[in-house]
């Protein structure tokens, strides 16, 4: 019995080892090696690449990534919690409402980001409409700034927040609300003091699922932020391609991974059932 089970898992172990753990190990190793003459890496071992994050320029990139990801997470929560509540409380066609949240979760992230280029650029739909109605005479600079990046992040990751929150709200006993009402609580008081605290595990999981990809965003900042918005993700990509400084790119990647790991450990210690 036990032998067959290990055979079932064997191919997956092979793929996860070769396709995830070993590559990640290589990046971790590169982050403490020296930059090679023609790209690549060389010995000796050094903490130089990691130390470069003390440089105000890179500290700034790090800080900006955190701030934008933080704002996107808060906006997702503000927009997403009521949406999750709406789906969980819908008296009819609940599956349809849920599907309408799930659908964009899977349909091409790249194309969904591109749609905002179409809407926001100088000759895009918003500016064209505003000029046509006479509200403005010159196009507003809507694209290639931090606001556009935040919009793209919220748009891209909102379903990640809604789904776990919906899952916790769905499991809540409706009798708890009746009890609160019987004891004299207004609907708003019930929402803030019963429903919201009970949904906390879902909110934490949702916040993690939005914050982590936002922090590592690459497509959104590149397409909507233009050259003005460089985040850690763009830094990593740049060092591995045009920059040809693999140790520094690897160090940036490791900084990102350690934030992800810390957040994940914190979440799983609080809500162990969040795991698969």
């Amino acid at each position: 019995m036990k032998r067959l089970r290990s055979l079932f898992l064997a191919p997956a172990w092979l793929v996860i080892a070769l396709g995830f753990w070993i590559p990640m190990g290589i990046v971790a190793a590169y982050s403490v090696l020296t930059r090679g003459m023609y790209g690549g890496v060389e010995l000796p071992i050094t903490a130089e690449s990691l130390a470069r994050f003390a440089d105000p320029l890179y500290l700034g990139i790090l800080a900006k990534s955190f701030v934008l990801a933080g704002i996107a997470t808060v906006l997702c929560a503000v927009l997403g919690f009521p949406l999750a509540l709406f789906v969980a409380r819908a008296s009819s066609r609940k599956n349809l409402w849920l599907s309408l949240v799930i659908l964009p979760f899977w349909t091409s992230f790249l194309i969904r980001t591109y749609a905002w280029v179409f809407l926001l650029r100088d000759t895009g739909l918003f500016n064209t409409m505003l000029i046509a109605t006479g509200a403005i005479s010159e196009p507003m600079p809507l694209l290639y700034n931090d606001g556009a990046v935040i919009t793209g992040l919220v748009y891209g990751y909102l379903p990640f927040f809604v789904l776990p929150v919906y899952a916790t709200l769905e499991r809540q006993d409706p009798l708890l609300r009746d009890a609160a009402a019987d004891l004299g609580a207004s609907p708003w008081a019930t929402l803030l003091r019963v429903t919201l605290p009970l949904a906390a595990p879902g909110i934490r999981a949702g916040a993690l699922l939005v914050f982590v990809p936002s922090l590592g965003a690459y497509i959104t900042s590149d397409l909507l932020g233009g050259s003005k918005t460089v985040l850690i993700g763009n830094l990593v990509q740049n060092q591995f391609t045009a920059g040809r400084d693999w140790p520094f790119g690897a160090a940036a990647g490791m900084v990102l991974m350690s934030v992800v790991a810390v957040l994940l450990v914190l979440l799983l210690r609080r809500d162990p059932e969040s795991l698969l």
Partner: protein
Amino acid sequence: MTRWLAAYAAAAYAFLHLPLLVLAAFSVNSAKSAVWERFSWKWYAEAFADRQLMEASANSLAIAIAAAVLSTVIGTLAAYGMWKRRSPVMAGSLYLSLVTPEIVWGVALLAFFQGLFRFLDVRLGLHTVIAAHVAFSIAYVVVVVLARLRTFDPALEEAAMDLGATEWQAFWRVTLPGIAPGVIAGALLAFTVSMDDYVITSLVAGVDSETLPMAIYAAARRGVSPALNAISTVIVFGLGVLIVVSERLQRS
């Protein structure tokens, strides 16, 4: 409060869906600008006549089919193994892989392949893209198939074995048919995430393995074009249908 909630939800749904609907609407606009002229399919004709775009589509389809088949087989077996007995290390690894920023995983795979090429005489190409896609799709397959297995009665398998089936026969002839909708749903998701991936793909693709998202990305960086709107609409509609089918199967 219910009315407030409905109004709020309506706004949120509009935010989630209007951008793509607007893009689709303007893909059948005869004018090149964002001003409506009249209905026309001409940008679709232009997109389908674009050889580079069509080659990239063929690459993407080949990669997605190969990656979906491989990751579905591997992921289904893994989910079955994890259902039989929990494997916290595998579950943890898959969970971590799901939340790992794509850009970090992408450069890690690039570094891994570059290291491998010192020993093997191969180059970046379709095969490296397929290998990478299998790696990141497995977690999706496992999540969906495992969810299906949790609704499957293990007593059925025991009954089969009491009647003389071997362990493999019990899996192949009893459990697998029982969880088939979940397996197909997982395969459709793996196909979708493979068709859609840009970040990891662009890092591990070779010169002869440009995929559709790579072609779209390059075009999107140059600016907006009606042909791009057209091909985007085709992809969103196509993947949307697959997702709806996958959803149905997961709930059936």
